[in-house]
């Protein structure tokens, strides 16, 4: 059952220097309980997509076009009071840097209880009980004591657990996680990934996991969307995208990640740099960095479907080519 349906979303920033098209025509659906990974480099528009769903795009940015239907409601023209009612209660968000997401001058209980009370009446006892329960769920030992602590008394991993606990307080239908494990140690990262997966499955919560790390997404998401310069260039099941990438950019991303299987060989690089969103190349935005580019690429490619739901936005999709490439 579709929970979230985004149609041709365009979030643009109208700066003095010009219009920055951070998100430029993104469409995808998300079912209840499904985890979608959005992968891309910095500036590809993946975080802005998340903030657009939350209705937290700050001026000079705004949603210029498109619709975001969440459980039947179009969030794009939802008035702020209703949007605020959804935020935190039905759609929650987890941020990248756990050192920065909790307010340093407020105690953890203050920050948790205010999140509860933003969406209904809670007595002190009930609120504390709920906070203790959720902190316990995310694996924080002795929650009672921890509630009275300040954020600086926690380690990075523990702070991220607190932030996750806050996101889970109202058992939301959708959690948007903006690179929540990037700033953590690998061991902590693995623990948190495991626990999030468990919690999401228990509550049938849908999740959008924004990251630049394909490896994280490979073990977590049901489906993956790869973003480049404000657009989804490839989307499909995790297996399809990771093992049979059709877009040269996706293939490049996978090729440039070190793996155990290719010991001793040089990592392939994607040449050049991600284009500045202010001045994108005409046609396919990836064309200047692409080895397969031809004259046809001067025209922006439309999205085409390969087998199943595997979607790619390329004139020369690498059907099966990547498999042969690694085998050779």
């Amino acid at each position, binding site marked *: 059952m579709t929970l979230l349906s985004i149609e041709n979303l365009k979030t643009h920033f109208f700066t003095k220097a010009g219009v920055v098209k951070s998100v430029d025509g993104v469409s995808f659906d998300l079912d209840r309980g499904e985890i979608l990974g959005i992968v891309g480099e910095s500036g590809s528009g993946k975080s802005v997509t998340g903030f657009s769903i939350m209705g937290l795009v700050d001026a000079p940015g705004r949603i210029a076009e498109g619709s975001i239907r969440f459980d039947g409601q179009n969030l794009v023209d939802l008035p702020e009071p209703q949007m605020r009612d959804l935020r935190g209660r039905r759609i929650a968000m987890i941020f990248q840097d756990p050192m920065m997401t909790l307010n340093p001058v407020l105690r953890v209980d203050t920050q948790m209880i205010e999140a509860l009370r*933003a969406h209904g009446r809670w007595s002190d006892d009930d609120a504390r009980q709920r906070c203790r329960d959720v902190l316990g769920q995310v694996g924080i030992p002795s929650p009672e004591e921890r509630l009275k602590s300040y954020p600086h008394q926690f380690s990075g991993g523990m702070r991220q657990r607190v932030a996750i606990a806050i996101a889970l307080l109202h058992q939301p239908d959708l959690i948007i996680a903006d690179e929540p494990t990037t700033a953590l140690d690998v061991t902590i990262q693995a623990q948190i990934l495991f626990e999030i997966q468990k919690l999401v499955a228990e509550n049938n919560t849908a999740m959008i996991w924004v990251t630049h790390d394909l490896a994280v997404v490979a073990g977590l998401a049901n489906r993956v969307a790869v973003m480049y310069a404000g657009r989804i260039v490839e989307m499909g099941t995790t297996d399809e995208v990771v093992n049979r990438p059709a877009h040269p950019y996706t293939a490049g991303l996978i090729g440039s990640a070190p793996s155990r299987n290719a010991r001793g060989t040089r990592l392939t690089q994607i040449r050049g740099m991600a284009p500045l969103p202010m001045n994108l190349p005409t046609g396919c935005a990836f064309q200047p960095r692409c080895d397969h580019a031809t004259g046809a690429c001067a025209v922006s490619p439309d999205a085409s479907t390969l087998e199943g739901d595997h979607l790619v936005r390329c004139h020369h999709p690498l059907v099966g080519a990547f498999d042969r490439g690694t085998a050779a």
Partner: protein
Amino acid sequence: MTVFIIRRLLQSVLVVAVMTLLVFAGVYAIGNPVEILISQDATEAERAAAIARLGLDKSLPEQYLAFLGNLVKGDLGTSFVFGEPALQLVLQRFPATMELAICAMMMSIFIGVPLGLYAGLRPESIAGRTIMTGSIFGFSLPNFWQGLMLIMLFAVILQWLPAGGRGVRGEFLGIESSFFSWDGISHLILPAINLALFKTSLVIRLTRASVRETINLDYVKFARAKGLRPRRVIGLHVLKNIMIPLVTIIGLEFGSVIAFAVVTETVFAWPGMGKLIIDSIFQLDRPVIVAYLIVIVCLFITINLVVDILYAILDPRVRLADQKA
């Protein structure tokens, strides 16, 4: 905490000692007060008697040691000019200056913080820009000129408020103050505004800058993502964080308002300490100068102590015991 306060107080004693030494040497270097105090045609005998009476016949170290001896007994000496105890002279004027300073600081906080918040939250709006432009006038126009213009407008042309003086003081719970009578308040308004204008501009600019910095931080976005009302996000999450730099500056400025209200007190003929210290410096009335400075130093030390304690209350990451200063 207790250790911190005790250490602070010990340091203050040292500061006061060093300060008195400097003032003693400084005033001695400027000139001989006897030249000013005694008429030109006094005889040599009268002159010698006056010098002996003021204790100026001894060498400077001897004078200083005598002063320190009296200081321990709580005696700061007798004014050369008025013949009254110096400390008493200063403390008589103290309430008037405090009234003015407290009033001015309150104005700058209760006007400056809200305006700064607004300008920080809506930097591109017309009101936000107007506030910022206005604040430039606030601290670039000379203080005395602002005072004269206030007198011109409100006292001379509109005749709403008195031009100077302190007015009749009211009494409440045994405390005598201008705050407790209408006449007192009406005399207080203009000098307080004059003194507050600069501070308000400073508070506006500092608040705005802190808001601009804080508003984009993740914890503010996270607070919004929790579905909190804007009032709570701004009123608690943002405000509590920007209070940290604000408290420091307001504390320092409060001290400087008390110590350097001279110009305003002169323009509005306000009988405060500023007027007294200027007169005393002209007459090289060393005991009054020293007494005044001791009072001011003690005040600064108290304010800084209060700021440090407020700091620890506002920011849980600060531990007073760990601080060296």
